[in-house]
């Protein structure tokens, strides 16, 4: 199709209302292949909602979303197909507590990708090694630290060979000393050329990894730009105010 965008993610005029609450009021953005877009903003600004609309965890009230040239619809087959290509990492990890780390990473490979047990296990071990905890394969989530749990969650998403990775405040629920181990994994992913959309409050990560930074407030994009310009010379008064509050 001619009008299908060539970007990995293309969002056109996205609107999302929760009852009377207008979470997102017309947001348009694109993420090109291999690029990292970091979305920042105060809580309640709609940044997580935008992310959750991309894999249809929230169904948009209006607007269009294209993922890898495929338009997102309400059709279940379409949604499941897109979700298998889009990995997401949550603030609360959401590991499956009844399965080991390896079991967590294997489940969707077997059920969705229909991989054989041996193949799924081999890939799971590769991904655990990739996030730096190959020795935790047979451990249950409750016995892992927060940082380790989040790394298993990243490995679980990566094992599906996603074309895009979404991160919804991946370090916000972590103790301070565990944030770095997760950010390091994300940084390595970005360097490897993974297409990423990241909602975070970690400005260090945004500065180092982002190709573009998007600042949202009250359901709208206030400002966007490269890290240098965004942090060095923001145009909008609201951006300056926000940055002055979080950069001490």
């Amino acid at each position: 199709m001619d009008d299908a965008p060539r970007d990995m993610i293309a969002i056109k005029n996205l609107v999302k209302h929760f009852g009377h609450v207008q979470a997102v009021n017309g947001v348009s953005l694109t993420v090109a292949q291999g690029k990292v877009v970091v979305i920042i903003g105060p809580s309640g600004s709609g940044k997580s909602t935008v992310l959750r609309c991309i894999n249809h965890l929230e169904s948009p009230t209006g607007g269009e979303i294209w993922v890898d040239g495929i338009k997102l619809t309400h059709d279940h087959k379409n949604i499941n197909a897109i979700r298998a290509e889009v990995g997401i990492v949550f603030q609360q990890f959401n590991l499956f507590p009844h399965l080991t780390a390896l079991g967590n990473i294997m489940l969707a490979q077997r059920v969705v990708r229909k991989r054989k047990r041996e193949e799924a296990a081999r890939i799971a071990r590769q991904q655990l090694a990739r996030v730096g905890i190959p020795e935790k394969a047979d451990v249950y989530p409750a016995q892992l630290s927060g940082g380790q749990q989040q790394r298993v969650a990243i490995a679980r998403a990566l094992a599906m060979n996603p074309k895009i990775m979404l991160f919804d405040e991946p370090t916000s629920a972590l103790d301070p000393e565990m944030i770095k181990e997760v950010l390091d994994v994300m940084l390595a992913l970005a360097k490897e050329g993974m297409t990423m959309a990241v909602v975070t409050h970690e400005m260090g990560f945004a500065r180092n990894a982002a190709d573009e930074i998007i600042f949202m407030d009250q359901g709208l994009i206030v400002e966007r730009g490269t890290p240098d310009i965004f942090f060095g010379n923001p145009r909008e008064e609201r951006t300056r105010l926000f940055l002055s509050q979080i950069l001490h």
Partner: protein
Amino acid sequence: MDAAMAPITSTPSTAMWRQWNLSQVRWWVWLILIAAADVLLFVAIARDELYTLIFGKVQQGIVLTLFVTLVAYFLALAIGLIVGLGRVSKNGIIYNLATLYVQIIRGVPILVQIFFVSFVATPAFFELLKAIGAALSGVLGPDNFLAQTSTQDVSLLARAVVALTVAYGGYEAETFRAGIESIGRGQMEAARSLGMSYFQAMRYVILPQAVRNVLPPLGNDFVSMLKDSSLVSVLGVRDITQEARLYVAASFRYPETYYMLAFMYLNMTIPLSMAVRWLEGRMGSGRRAA
């Protein structure tokens, strides 16, 4: 003994040991007391001619009691799971149908449900079959198998099992619903975001955790089913209660017979209840946090 009186050498681990020990002692005391009383009663029964006779009569129904309990319970689990899934469904029609079923079941006494299934629903069902058979007589012939069916084809035992299944299906549905709702929303989101369908997420992520959480209530419901299986005696199905009633009718030995009947139920329900409590305790200590 409170903490202040504990020896100075007491460490957190010994304090934990004491706590664990106390609850274990109570459990074992119960078991020993009951087992001892039970043995005494058995000896008394074995040495008494009349009680031996009554036991011989009443125990003839034990296979039926266990059969009704097991079959109705496991069928009720199947219905309960399906209806329970309906109770958490986002589809309005499915949700409302499931809710209607649960509301009706929970609002009518089980005894009345047994009468209703046996003497209203079953005949009505066969009237319907016959009507269909008559309507299709042109196609299938006047003596087709549908027209030949009769309410008498279904034994009162089968009707009793169906009635208990339908009744307990409603209760188990609420148990499963509670279990499913005890699992955080994030689990479903994580499973769905990995590309799983709703039913795959239920099957592999939600239900394994939900069922684990509701094992104790499911176990209690099994004990309840064992007790409620005595209701089938109103249909003349010869479980242990009916055997006892038959003996009483012939002998007028009310106290001896009903003591014996109660004794036999207790001998089944108390060990089962203890097994459920043991299961509960094991889960409490071994529970894995989300």
